[in-house]
């Protein structure tokens, strides 16, 4: 059986699945229930000066009948008294000594950081996570993403935290920046043990078009919220990978952003995460999803021959390349399996209207479309729209050209194959 034991920045847990700092990790009773269900760790909902929240707080992005493929919230940090939180953290750690309890923090002054860190460590925290990411409510008060967007502020406050903490400090990064790398490096300079990302993306989840008020609606108005859920995974994967492959950056990463199942977790781990944090899918489906996450990850590792989790961490990072280093002579064309095709012609219309006009109705009248391989640029669009698993495959073509990248072409005169579909 593969070993899922996790060590992320010196914080250990029985598996890499941590609850992210959010409503599912709001209280001791919840976190204990989550640990009982199988979660390996939890990042406690951010502690700071308890706030007052609004109603409503959440919004969902629904698409073609699927509810909440994206999600956002305008909820703030904890609204519960600090002493209650610390007491519960203590109780959780007492009952679950091997599970990771990371305490998320967000305060303003150095003195406040000092005090809250001391209390967190005293309560038994295995690590701290500095919330430099929240893009709503707290940032207007000079905290959250207002810190995470300024590398010098990030570095200074990280340094305070590291100075006062006897446990590892993670810095949670905001994605609301043009390039994540300088922010990861700022945390590294500040002495962080690791980073966690992404926090939520500044967003308006939708507009109530009857009332003409954005959502989630608070009386007659709304505000920008933090976007998360399955739909943000691609953004999160890119930011995780951008840090993981940066030669200057060498901290462990706790990956966050749209992780809904074990496959998502494998992707985050392969791009450099040593633990993964989950919130939205738990909010939508409950703690119970972790059973499948653990089993699925174990099954994957067994199938692929990984015995320990760290063998998988970052394994896809080398393949995350610059565009200029991709092989321009690599050629694929779409192949349609006539036995599987159901004749929906979604590939035909997609190729016609959205790609290169190379899939046509069969001139002989069958319902199976025909690919004009001399025009097919191998873009994948047809395969993406095809509703039948395995019906359209992208087949490699041996065109006789040696691999050549754009950079090799520019600087070394490498020969490129003739362009297809560019007339």
């Amino acid at each position, binding site marked *: 059986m593969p070993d899922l034991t996790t060590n992320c920045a010196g914080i250990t847990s029985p598996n890499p699945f941590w609850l992210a700092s959010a409503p599912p990790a709001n209280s001791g009773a919840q976190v204990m229930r989550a640990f009982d269900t199988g979660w390996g760790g939890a990042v406690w909902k951010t502690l700071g000066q308890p706030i007052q929240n609004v109603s409503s707080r959440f919004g969902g992005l629904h698409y073609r009948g699927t509810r909440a493929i994206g999600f956002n919230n305008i909820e703030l940090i904890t609204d519960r008294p600090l002493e209650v939180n610390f007491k519960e953290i203590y109780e959780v750690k007492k009952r679950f000594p091997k599970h990771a309890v990371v305490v998320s923090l967000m305060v303003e002054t150095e003195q406040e950081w000092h005090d809250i860190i001391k209390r967190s460590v005293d309560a038994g925290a295995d690590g701290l996570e500095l919330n430099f990411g929240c893009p709503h409510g707290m940032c207007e008060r000079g905290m959250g993403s207002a810190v995470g967007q300024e590398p010098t502020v990030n570095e200074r406050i990280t340094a305070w935290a590291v100075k006062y903490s006897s446990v590892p400090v993670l810095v949670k990064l905001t994605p609301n920046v043009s390039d994540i790398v300088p922010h990861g490096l700022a945390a590294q300079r500040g002495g962080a043990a690791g980073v966690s990302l992404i926090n939520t993306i500044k967003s308006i989840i939708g507009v109530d078009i009857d009332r003409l008020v954005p959502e989630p609606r608070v009386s007659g108005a709304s505000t920008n919220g933090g976007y998360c859920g399955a739909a943000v995974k691609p953004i999160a994967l890119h930011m995780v990978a951008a840090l993981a492959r940066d030669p200057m950056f060498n901290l462990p990463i706790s990956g966050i952003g749209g992780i809904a199942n074990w496959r998502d977790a494998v992707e985050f781990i392969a791009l450099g995460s040593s633990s993964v944090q989950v919130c939205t899918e738990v909010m939508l489906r409950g703690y119970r999803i972790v059973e499948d996450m653990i089993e699925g990850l174990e099954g994957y590792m067994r199938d692929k021959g990984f015995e320990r989790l760290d063998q998988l961490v970052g394994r896809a990072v080398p393949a995350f390349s610059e565009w200029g280093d991709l092989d321009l002579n690599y050629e694929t064309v779409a192949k349609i399996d006539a036995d599987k095709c159901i*004749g929906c012609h979604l590939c035909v219309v997609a190729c016609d209207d959205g790609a290169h006009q190379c899939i046509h109705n069969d001139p002989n009248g069958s319902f199976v479309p025909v690919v004009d391989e001399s025009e097919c640029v191998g873009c994948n669009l047809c395969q993406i729209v095809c509703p039948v698993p395995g019906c359209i495959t992208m087949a490699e073509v041996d065109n006789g050209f040696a691999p050549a990248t754009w950079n090799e072409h520019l600087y070394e005169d490498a020969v490129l194959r003739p362009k297809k579909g560019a007339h």
Partner: protein
Amino acid sequence: MATKLPENRAESVFADYKPAYQTPQALAEANRCLYCQDAPCIGACPTGINIPEFIRKIATGNLRGSARTIFDSNILGMSCARVCPVEVLCVGDCVYNRMDQPPIQIGKLQRYATDLAFESGWQFYEAGPDSGKKVALIGAGPASLACAHRLRRFGHACTIFEKRDVIGGLNAFGVAPYKMKADRAIEEAEWVLGIGGIEVKTGIEVGVDVSFSQLERDYDAVFVGIGLGPDRHLGVPGEELEGVYGAVDFIEAIKLEPASFEGVRRAVVVGGGNTAVDCVREAIGLGLGEVTMVYRGTEAKMSGYAHEWKAAKIDGARAIWRRHPIAYEGDGGRVTGVRVAVLDDDKQPIPGREELIGADLVLVAVGQSRLLDLLKLDGVRMDSRRILTDADGATGRPGVFAGGDLANGAKEVVNAVAEGRDAAVAIHAYLTEA
């Protein structure tokens, strides 16, 4: 003009065989539609409704647009949603069948959109500017309604002559009540007439109360959509017995009137077509005890749709195959049984093989007579079954067009709608050329 039907009609005991979708069901099903390009379901619809488009509009909440997409092709889209044999039309051709997944329930989605349009009172069409031309339409069934509606969009004045007091044709008095009730069909017909400028003269039978040649003189064109004639009977002894009815007569009676079936414990339906299967399911639904279909052929050869017969069997129907009535037997003027000959594989009587099947009610569903006499006119072509028309409904006699069961030999409501609609286009061309 609205015809008030009695509330306690016999058909009122029936519930919908295919219940209407509630919104969550409609959304789930609509979102399942693949939105095919060149969708086979469109080709399978005689009226060519742009099915993927109306379904997508349900999914996005554009319900008014969804209904309009349906009505653009089929102005009787609401009743067709209920009565079409979708299993052998659009649903039967859904691409999901090819991947062994449940096909999209197109009929139920169409009902969802059109019911809403109907109940909301949405009207999508306006009559065209007055052309000064007048068209007479004979029969107020689906073919004439579709024809008249389209003619009004072209601006031609329309007058429908209907021999009954009830408009809607077979949609009103011939559709199985677990698919649609008569009042709904009549209300739909009135909704179609809402375009305005269609005069309906009920209680006037062309050929009796007014001559066909009079219509040809008074109108610029004539559309004939009179459907089929009365039930055929087998011409065997005992047809006069109380309790022996033609199928169409029976269905009309239960749809339009109250009925009592006291004392009926055993019903026999003679025939193996769709009307026979309808009668079987209706008799079961009315609680007429044991219901038996008697057909001269085999289950594999019956012309009734397999999906309908399967549903009838689930309802509790049974059938006796390869039997043909040779007499109805009675007692005191009331039928008590059907004497049948046992047939061989070639439907020939096996000598000496006769049986008696007990029955308190016999419904004879062996076809309907044809109403061809009205059109025995110069230029009109016909065979023994139907008026022969061009694809656009032209009969060969200038200015005379036909559609529906009269011209197609008895098909579905949706065929009648398509033929009426297309004939209107041809009539418009006829009226406006030269």
